[in-house]
């Protein structure tokens, strides 16, 4: 099988199947047409275009032949339906199919001889295909759920039942597209949930920092018996599953009347984040040069003064990472909010979205709720990705 033409053919078939599946999904989602791949024709197209890419050096000629092959082999039905149905969309589809088959395949077989391949060349070809496949596959599995979430929230119930694949935007509805959001905010009090979640998350961040900064400084800088044990065992707390803690907390809160209070929630949330914040910060504090702090001590600052005036200003990037990470944990927290809050006037956002998961509430409301819960954290993530990624990495693998 280590022949150039064989590899080009096989890679062509696999790539063609990948592309046709993706393109079918894209076409179905964006137009609602009953498109479907013609498997055999696709495989044939792929093999043929793979060989064209291998044998023919001219790009323009190769692309033209590819387009002709796409149309010819599929008997003018590249997506399993007559070209007459929504010709514009199908035309664009054919163009993308031709481009998406020819150029990636050309890149994959580039430099490979037609005849016998060395092991190096053979594996190189396979790696190139796998890389291409990986880009498409990973992008698809990440984007599709979020796309479906967003689009379901702006669709009508009827339209979705009629064709669950049609995610085309009904522009003629205008502002009516956001009906689900309007109802959530007006009738389901999502404005208040949003505010509560925001308040709880920010408060959690503040309390966490208040507790963990001094603790981290002590572990990182001060010498005392048990320092080593402390810095190692702090993460052990993360080994304890939340559900094991939640049960006694529920019992205790029921007895002391702390259930259904945000205060109760705020007693718990920071403690779940303090250990990881402490751990992240002590790592950072260790990396700061000790000389500056010693100079501060010499000049008559107390230890607390040193922390406040020297260490903290130097650690702003780390504080940003920690804050974002903690904010994310608190914002996304579900279990405790679910168990401890029953009173709809005190719901956090995640708890509020749970309420929408019932057969009486239409699906698009649930998805709109999901979008409302996701959007702030994704915006924050995209805007401050540098800090967030650092926080995620340093925050180790808390799940």
């Amino acid at each position, binding site marked *: 099988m280590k022949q150039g033409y064989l590899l080009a053919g096989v890679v062509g078939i696999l790539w063609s199947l990948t592309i046709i599946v993706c393109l079918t999904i894209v076409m179905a989602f964006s137009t609602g047409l009953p498109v479907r791949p013609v498997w055999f024709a696709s495989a044939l197209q792929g093999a043929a275009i793979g060989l064209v890419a291998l044998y023919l050096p001219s790009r323009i000629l190769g692309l033209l032949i590819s387009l002709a092959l796409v149309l010819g082999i599929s008997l003018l039905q590249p997506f399993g339906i007559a070209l007459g149905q929504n010709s514009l969309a199908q035309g664009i589809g054919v163009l993308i199919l031709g481009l998406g088959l020819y150029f990636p395949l050309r890149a994959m077989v580039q430099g490979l001889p037609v005849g016998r391949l060395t092991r190096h060349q053979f594996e190189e070809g396979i790696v190139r295909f796998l890389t291409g496949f990986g880009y498409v596959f990973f992008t698809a599995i990440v984007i599709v759920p979020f796309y479906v979430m967003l689009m379901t929230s702006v669709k009508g119930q009827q339209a979705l039942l009629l064709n669950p694949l049609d995610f085309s935007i009904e522009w003629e509805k205008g502002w009516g597209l956001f009906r689900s959001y309007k109802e959530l905010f007006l009738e389901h009090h999502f404005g208040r949930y949003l505010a509560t979640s925001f308040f709880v998350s920010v408060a959690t961040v503040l309390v966490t920092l208040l507790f963990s900064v001094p603790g981290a400084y002590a572990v990182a800088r001060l010498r005392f018996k048990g320092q080593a044990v402390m810095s190692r065992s702090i993460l052990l707390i993360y080994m304890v599953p939340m559900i094991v803690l939640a049960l006694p907390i529920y019992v205790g809160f029921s007895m002391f009347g702390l259930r259904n209070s945000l205060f109760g929630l705020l007693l718990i949330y920071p403690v779940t984040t303090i250990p990881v914040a402490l751990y992240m910060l002590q790592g950072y504090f260790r990396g700061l040069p000790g000389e500056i702090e010693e100079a501060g001590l010499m000049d008559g600052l107390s230890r607390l003064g040193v922390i406040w005036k020297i260490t903290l200003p130097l650690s702003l990037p780390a504080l940003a990472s920690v804050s974002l990470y903690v904010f994310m944990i608190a914002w996304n927290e579900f279990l405790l909010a679910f168990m401890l809050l029953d009173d709809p006037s005190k719901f956090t956002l995640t708890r509020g979205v749970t309420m929408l*998961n019932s057969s009486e509430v239409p699906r698009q409301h649930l998805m709109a709720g999901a979008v409302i819960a996701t959007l702030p954290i994704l915006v924050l993530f995209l805007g401050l990705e540098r800090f967030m990624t650092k926080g995620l990495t340093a925050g180790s693998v808390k799940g």
Partner: protein
Amino acid sequence: MSTTEFSSSAAGGGRQTPSPVPPPSGPLARREARLAWGLLTPTLLSVALVIILPLIAIFWISAKPIGLSDLRPTTPDVYERMRGKVTAAGDKAVIEYRLKNSSREKPIRSVTMTDQWPAGLEAKGLDARCTIANGMISCNLGDWEPGYNERLRIDVVAGSEFVDSGINIRDSEPVMRGEASSELFSLSFTWDNFRSVFDSGEFLEVLWVTLFYTIVGTIGALVVGMLAALMLNKSFSGQGILRGLFLFPYVAPVIAVAFTWVTLLDPFSGSFNALLVQMGLIDTPINFFGQRPLALFTVTAFEIWRYFPLSFLFILARMQSIDNDIYEAADMDGASPFQKFYYLSLPQLMGILSVLFLLRFIWTFNKFDDIFLMTGGNAGTRTLTVNVYEQAFAISNIGAGAAVAVVIFGCLLAFSFFFFKFLSREEGL
């Protein structure tokens, strides 16, 4: 490579290992130690209160036969009203207290009642258990057995002061006190909870489901994350965007993505089934979350989807820190891509892979939200953590839930013992 190292390298500083020399002892050193403990106290206290105390409590509760309803405190109930119309001074009426122990199981001991009477009411023929002083009636009602019910009537004569003021007798609530033993604080213990958990035929299944979910989920997330990292481990434009995109599943709230998967895979209105049917791959829609053993595979796939970004992030960070020289040298020697991966990259990644495996293993084992939101533990997806919730809240047996929690804790202790022994040898953690 230890976890400590990536935290510090990610945060931008090298780590100084603590000096092996014992700290000097002297007044200054003692002051420093005192300050350190002072700074750590808030953290230690809060951790003790919120983590250690509940952990102890869970053992206590697991040996108690208590259900959800036992969490409500047993208190004496009272309903007060005035019978008879009072229109003029000297009219007679009856003040009636309906007393009740609404608990059907627990007695209430030494019940007392106090109530403020409005001015101008005079009691005639007071019950022997009650006394009146300064318009305040107090009664010693003794012990009430479960379901106790009584009407305490007191004849009164209204004075002009009462008639004129027009005060309603119910404006002041009677105050009831009584001691009810709570099962929670008694010193009797039982093995019943553990027995009911272990005896039920489903326990073995729960254990098996947990193991499958944990092992396949962990390894899957690692492998998928490594593939994604391999793919992005070269610089090209758009690499940053893709890297950010790949983190979406992890960053988004679990509740949003879990419900999205449920919507997406719904057998009736879900897009995924519709897609498969339209492509001609299946004839009838598949119930991904409703049928054994498919539901378990689906939730495991979700777990992999949601957590591959984490392994991806770590493995990519590690890959980018590998020196490029060794690959150039390997190229010189004619190594093929797979050989380079197997003989050069993989050994370098082994450290981070094993750390990730151990940590992810424990956290997947602890995972509750994902399965709970998607299937609620039905269709053969009940893991140990979901079982805690099922026992405690669906069956309303808090004690049995706590017993499962104790089992989880035991497993974790065993894992940690094993892993940290292994880790401390292999990774210097």
